[in-house]
């Protein structure tokens, strides 16, 4: 009895640093943001309790509506593309390829470098006058004239989607690859004996067995894409005319302008959306077996 008590105290000591760090630098800031969102908190102005006034302002602001729509559209377009491309990469990497090690490393590279740096590379690629995208499009005859990638709403949207898909499909591929490797080879051999062709084996064996991992990757990417910031900050600055102003960037703009109350309220809304999704994620990922 006494020894279990000692062990309990000891495990608390082992956990304490982790708990303190997470409480002070994550939970406290998030709670602080929620509290601030109910105040007028503007540089050089008196702090004043407003309750939900900031939220009322947000929902009557057309710029918020635009930002909200952009963010969800961005998620809705880029995440499915990332999953498809990631699945394709994972299927390839799961084969007995001659240069499998090198290919795996190549796929990891876009994921491993800072988004801010890849954002700058893509900014040059999309350059109207001498960027690679227009060079290829005109050379290959896809477009007669150079395209103003970052200068039009639609162009900026798809430029961001392509850059984000490039950056994050590798992550999806690695997660799905782990799922693929867990599928027993005998199932495929059995399928072949039963006369199922390549496509049938994919639909009947691979997809159903990969489904749990696919769901995890989908939710993970959705939550991550919702909070997109760095790529947009570098590539379009939210422009043109606020067409690509993600919710994170929208909130950041208000912080930058000194309006912490309003910025916090926007952040709180984003937090609530992301948190609800992560609760779903946690419920879906059957992980308790690791802990036991």
């Amino acid at each position, binding site marked *: 009895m006494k020894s279990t008590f000692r062990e309990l105290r000891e495990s608390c000591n082992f956990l304490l640093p982790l708990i303190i760090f997470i409480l002070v*630098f994550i939970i406290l800031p998030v709670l602080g943001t929620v509290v601030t969102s109910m105040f007028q908190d503007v540089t050089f102005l008196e702090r004043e309790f407003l309750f939900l006034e900031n939220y009322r302002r947000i929902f009557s602001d057309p710029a918020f509506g635009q930002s909200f729509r952009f963010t969800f559209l961005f998620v809705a377009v880029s995440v499915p593309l990332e999953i498809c491309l990631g699945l394709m990469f994972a299927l390839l990497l799961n084969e007995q390829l001659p240069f499998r090690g090198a290919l795996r490393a190549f796929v990891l590279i876009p994921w491993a470098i800072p988004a801010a740096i890849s954002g700058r590379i893509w900014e040059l690629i999309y350059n109207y006058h001498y960027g690679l995208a227009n060079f290829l499009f005109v050379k290959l005859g896809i477009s007669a004239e150079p395209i103003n990638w970052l200068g039009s709403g639609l162009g900026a949207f798809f430029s961001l989607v392509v850059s984000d898909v490039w950056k994050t499909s590798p992550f999806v591929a690695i997660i799905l690859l782990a799922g693929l490797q867990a599928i027993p080879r005998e199932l495929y051999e059995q399928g072949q004996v039963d006369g199922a062709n390549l496509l049938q084996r994919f639909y009947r064996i691979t997809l159903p067995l990969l489904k749990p991992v696919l769901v995890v990757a989908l939710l993970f990417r959705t939550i991550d894409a919702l909070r997109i910031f760095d790529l947009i900050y570098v590539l379009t600055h939210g422009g043109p005319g606020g067409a690509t102003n993600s919710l994170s960037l929208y909130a950041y703009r208000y912080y930058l302008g000194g309006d912490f109350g309003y910025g916090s309220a926007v952040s709180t809304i*984003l937090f609530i959306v992301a948190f609800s999704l992560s609760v779903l994620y946690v419920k879906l990922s059957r992980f308790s077996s690791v802990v036991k």
Partner: protein
Amino acid sequence: MTERKTRIVLILLGSIFMATFCLTPFAYMFITSFSESSDFLSSQDFHFSLDNYRSVLTVRSLHFLDYLRNSLIVSGISAFLCVLIAGLAAYAITRLALPGKVFIMFFVLAVSMFPQVSMVGYLFKFMAGIGWTDTYRSLIFPYIAWILPLSLWILVSYFAQIPRDLDKAALIDGATHLQILRKIILPIALPGFLSCFLLAFIFAFNEFIFALVLTTTHHARTIPVGIALFQGLHGETPWGNIMAAATITTIPVVILTVIFQRHIIQGLTRGAVKS
């Protein structure tokens, strides 16, 4: 045999597409960094030059080397402390009697998905309040907290695989838990610690929004923010310089990724989907 052929053709085409898709932007970055002018595609006029590297490495007002040093220090310290703290916690979770283990893992997983923008405004005021703005500390502390969930998940999955007979025997011999962690778990789970350190380092190195808000000058600003805000001496966008800086920054990351790809992949998959 036609199915076999289709399969080979598909795999071949797919692999070529995959490699081209992933590597083209890097090749473009690399070539531009060695070009005298960055409009070589439209002018059809490529001249090899090292000027971009020379100016990035020698013009002090660009602060490239400051940013790089800041990034290496901040990411190195954050990753190291993160592995240490997560190692202790993972030991408690896998080895000690503790109610609510499942809750802690749930909680930490949910925390890792919080949007950073919902912390950064408060953190900015907090850091300004205690006078830490624009210091390494102002980044290291939030980074550790932010990367701990992932590190904990990776290490727990490694620790859980180590048979308990070893530490039970050591306990009977009178070893403390800290000794068991250091002498038994650490050597066996070394690959796990390595994956964890590498991933923590990459996450800290790539972090953007905290660094953007919590630092103001070259004293603490990290390389992603430095490159994002890179301005020429005369206000134009110095593409050549940016690409040279990007190349110097990414080449070590790329080499690390190639060497340790197995460890990184293992860490990622354990952190994200372990069941």
